[in-house]
């Protein structure tokens, strides 16, 4: 049992756990949607003074910021106390492919050090990639009115056609960049 929890979780345990988190949020009268926090963050930083989109009572969204803060602590606990190893056991063919792209820690790390080691802070290319990726995620999530949690899990669970369109967009955009752009910029 303990080993089961300390090893990487299999998909058939992970998926239901995510659904359970969604259930807990619905059961407490809220919704499962993480990207809303980025909008709330803008409002907290004062963006509502000039832009109507951010002029709302952000304190009503405090609960979701608390969920996000919990997710930070959860990540800390999982990485430091709940893991035998944090190497991600991706497939051999993925490892070979990433090695060719110059990412040599594929299969032995949780994140590529080229992007997520402290040294990335002093590497212009890494900073540019992280900024570009983050910007599109934030812009796209709000444009689409939700992200993976809001559309792919919550929306599809409720048979929402808009969510299906959004998820098709997520994957179409991701496939395009993964196959045609990443090999050029990594």
């Amino acid at each position, binding site marked *: 049992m303990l080993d089961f929890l300390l090893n990487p979780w299999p*998909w058939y345990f992970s998926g239901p756990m995510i659904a359970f988190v969604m259930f807990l949020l619905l059961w407490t009268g809220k919704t499962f949607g993480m990207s809303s926090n980025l909008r709330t963050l803008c409002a907290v930083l004062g963006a509502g003074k000039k832009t109507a989109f951010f002029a709302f009572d952000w304190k009503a969204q405090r609960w979701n910021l608390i969920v996000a803060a919990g997710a930070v602590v959860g990540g800390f606990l999982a990485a430091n106390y709940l893991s035998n190893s944090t190497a991600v056991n991706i497939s051999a063919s993925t490892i070979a492919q990433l090695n060719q792209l110059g990412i040599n820690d594929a299969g032995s790390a949780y994140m590529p050090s080229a992007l997520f080691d402290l040294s990335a802070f002093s590497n212009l290319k890494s900073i540019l990639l992280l900024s570009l990726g983050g910007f599109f995620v934030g812009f796209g999530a709000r444009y689409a009115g939700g992200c993976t949690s809001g559309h792919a899990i919550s929306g599809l669970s409720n048979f929402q056609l808009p969510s299906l*369109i959004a998820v098709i967009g997520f994957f179409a955009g991701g496939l395009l960049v993964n196959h045609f752009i990443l090999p050029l910029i990594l």
Partner: protein
Amino acid sequence: MKTIVYFSIGILFGITMFKSEAASWFRIYEMFQFKAFHMYGIIGSALFCGVIITYLLKTFRVTSILDGTEIQIADKEKGWKRYLFGGLFFGFGWAISGACPGPMFTTLGAGFFPIIVVIAAATLGTFCYGVLQKYLPH
């Protein structure tokens, strides 16, 4: 009380994101390469359970455990442009950063500090959407 409830749910979510490896850049890369079932299994089984949960909550008009009001699961606004175009942008970023908004917070806690750049840029992206909203097709 409510703070403790939501904080605990967040901790559970963070642990799940990390242990499922959905917060790993490598898993997102591999997913878009169709080289493993893992991520599709996670999303598929989450959806399978999610559909049942949503159906039961709506059918039996379950009330919130905190304040006793009936649980509302709102429909998304109709339309397609914003979902398709916004979705595409999101996908571009997802493939590059390997992070969606939930796992961003998890990876920060796990100690991959350059994710701060992603979170800051995502907040800026959200801000830019708010400013440009009225000029974009929805």
